[in-house]
């Protein structure tokens, strides 16, 4: 499990890449990945390309990020989700809160 984050050159986009299992074990790392930036970006991107697994506490972490990013005004995008991950997001209807691709 690892979480890496990177801000775009113009500072408007923060990309968080989760690798391996996205579960309670990545809780602190995931929070740090966006809380440590001083400047608030406009867009948050969660890249799940190398995430192998996602559980309900991961869904909770996505909600925390959304809350941090401004709740209903937040622009949080979840990208590169595998079909399994997409299924989990679909059951919870998280596509109503996040832009999932």
């Amino acid at each position: 499990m690892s979480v890496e984050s990177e801000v775009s050159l113009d500072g408007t986009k923060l990309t968080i890449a989760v690798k391996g299992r996205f579960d309670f074990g990545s809780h602190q790392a995931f929070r740090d990945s966006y809380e440590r930036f001083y400047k608030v970006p406009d867009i948050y991107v969660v890249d799940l390309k190398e995430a192998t697994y996602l559980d309900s506490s991961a869904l909770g972490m996505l909600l925390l990020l959304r809350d941090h990013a401004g709740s209903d005004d937040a622009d949080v995008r979840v990208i590169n989700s595998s079909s399994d991950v997409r299924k989990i997001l679909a059951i919870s209807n998280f596509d109503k809160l996040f832009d999932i691709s």
Partner: protein
Amino acid sequence: MSLLTVLIAEDSAADLLLLSTIVRRQGHRVLTATNGQQALEVFTRERPQLVLMDALMPVMDGFEAARQIKQLAGETLVPIIFLTSLSGSQALARCLDAGGDDFLAKPYNPIILAAKINAMDRLRRLQATVLQQRDQIARHHEYLLHEQRVAKAVFDKVAHSGCLNAARNIRYLQSPYALFNGDLLLAAYTPSGDMHVLLGDFTGHGLPAAVGAMPLAEVFYGMTAKGYGLAQTLREMNAKLKRILPVDMFCCATLLCLSAQRRVVEVWNGGMPDGYVHEVATGRRTPLVSRHLPLGVLAPEVFDDCTQVWPMALGDRVFLLSDGVIDTADANEQLFGVERLLQVFAANREPERLFEDIEQALAGFRGEVRDDVSLVEISLLPEQALHASAIQYTDSGQSCPLDWSVSFEFRAETLKRYNPLPYLLQLLLEIHGLRGQSGALYSVMAELYSNALEHGVLGLDSRLKRDVQGFADYYRQRNERLALLSNGYIRVHIDVLPTGAGGCLSLRIEDSGAGFDVETVLARPLDIDRLSGRGLNLVRQLSSHVRWSDGGRSVCVEFCWEALA
């Protein structure tokens, strides 16, 4: 380095003196013995922390003494270093077998002896720490289990105040401590005898997952007993969880209302795996798909309480399950999965055994059932006598109102978003004489109110509900027309009069619709009435003097009661 009490057992007086001097010079306290028997006695009396033991001694040799000392020491590590001039492997192996931890060969070297004593002391202290921590963990664990037992006992009082165990049409599989995995299963009757069932799954494990269950259960039982429908109950649950839970906690849930009278099931699924309506006659399964975000995520203003309604026949079953069922993994980390579940459904020939089939398939797949597996089967059985309301009254009855009337007019904007039935029922149950018939009263009010709304104000044709497709159309149209409603009304007139021994309630409901041909509808066979919905036979069974007037736009029923004993 700590200073130890060291027992030296050695039959040669010269060696004993030499060793005692070396050890004492290193700062330790020394006890001595000249044979195994004596060593045992000194050990029992003084409990030294380390033993230097000669192998060959009179009376009792070092091997036997070492064995007995190790036994006396129990879990505490008392290192024994054998003093020996023996050098053959076999002799050294005997020392180890007897429980020796190390050897010291003659001639004795003070530096090597000091090193060995230090090494053994570190080992001894490590062992002591491990034991202490083990005991601490065991105490914490015991404490945690005790807390869970108490929490569960309190919770059971709340959670099982419903009909989960009493209802003969519910079967379920749930570990007793599923609560601490966040799983929650609740069931209760509405005043009209419908059954509400909730299967929920909180995020996370342990106490945090269990904490949210309590308020959820309170809302579920309170609102179900008062006659609130799914939509209002869901709204209240969602708003409450949203308010009290941290942002990253929520509750996936399926809430359903099974009506044996109307032969339908109404379902809301937010975040749970597909449940199923299993039609016994055709073997067909309708998946109950999650269409909503879990409870506790959305703000009340944007929460979606939209439900779906499916027809059911006698003997049909609804299955709900938690993700523990689908995620049950076998020894090779293969998941049980939806496919296998559907295969069990497909292979089943006896609907009575379907529940066991699933249970066995799960157990067979993994070897045992996980403790976060929740599975519930609810069958539609012929309706039973109405269940007494679960509400407990605390007033004496002295102040019961017996001579009054009241009229309401609910207009379009209200009809769209408000269900007045729970409020009206509360009002009527101020009358003690009516409490014994609260179930019948609520059923009749509910039927007449929904007739007035759906067939009267909204102008829906009950004949639509002849088949499954029509059924879906009916409820789709109902929602569409209600959303667009701009005029129309339902009036409710309540008139309560005292009679000689008791009293009489007359309840009149009028609507702004086009009315209907009362004669024709009443002449329909019972089954058609039941399926396609005015439930008029039910109304006639449960109340006295049912009369329609104004071309079907107005209906009046009476409920009378005798004086209470």
